[in-house]
């Protein structure tokens, strides 16, 4: 989509989650933008979740489904009058089906400047073994 270099950043409106389940928390829920890539040993996920504190982020991995759920504290703006509102604040939620088997013990997560970096190490594949047949 974008070429590396001096491109101007384009505006992207936040995508709201179109879910059928009712949310228990009040507020809008958005789908964060993610980059997912892998190398030989691990699967790495980067998600843009500005405004999320580390304690408010829930990462869940079960049955090959990775669920990211982050709640954002709405800022207290009593007494302020809005002049221009171009974006809304809301919680974040996204789910992924993973095709790889992940070593759950070694998952690492880092949250810097509103970007989550999730490192999911793959389970080492069983090395194929030659089976020799004893002639008997």
């Amino acid at each position, binding site marked *: 989509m974008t070429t590396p270099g001096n491109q101007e950043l384009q505006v992207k409106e936040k995508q709201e989650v179109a879910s059928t389940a009712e949310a228990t928390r009040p507020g809008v829920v958005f789908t964060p933008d993610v980059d997912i890539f*892998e190398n030989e040993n691990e699967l790495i996920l980067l998600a843009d979740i500005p405004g999320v504190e580390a304690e408010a982020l829930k990462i869940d991995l079960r049955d090959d489904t990775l669920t990211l759920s982050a709640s954002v504290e709405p800022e207290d703006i009593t007494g302020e009058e809005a002049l221009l509102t171009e974006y809304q604040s809301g919680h974040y939620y996204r789910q992924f089906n993973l095709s790889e088997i992940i070593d759950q013990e070694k998952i690492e997560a880092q949250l810097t*400047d509103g*970007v989550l970096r999730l490192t999911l190490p793959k389970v080492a594949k069983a090395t194929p073994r030659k089976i020799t047949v004893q002639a008997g």
Partner: protein
Amino acid sequence: MIYRRMFGLPSWRANQPFADLEQIRRQMDRLWEGVTGERVHSRTAGVFPLVNLSEDMDNYYLRAELPGVGSNALDIQVDAKTISLSGERKIAAEGEDIKYHRRERDAGKFSRMISLPGDIEPDKATANLKHGLLKIVVPKAEAVKPRQINVS
């Protein structure tokens, strides 16, 4: 140009007066795009980053979401009536043997100027960038602050 709202409107939820309408608008936009295939032009200025501007008696507050932008990659300039935000969002190169499954995040430069409806004091402006959320507080110029007039 940013205009002051002429009258306050009642809200269903605190701090989110038009949230329900926003949701309907987004669904209508999606329906429209589904039928005609043309992208609906957004109601914003169309420049990154999207900002929320608000005011109270003493200050203007400008908020923006800038995930992945560190405070040294961000340049904020304030003069008598405008705030300029510029900088660059970088995405680190990851390595050689990488296979992408999904690539939704953008990198690049951005630059935006926001004109304020009244005069401000640039020397007393403060800015705070935490967890990718930028908040700039700019005090209004003394001459422009509303004053209570007592009736004797």
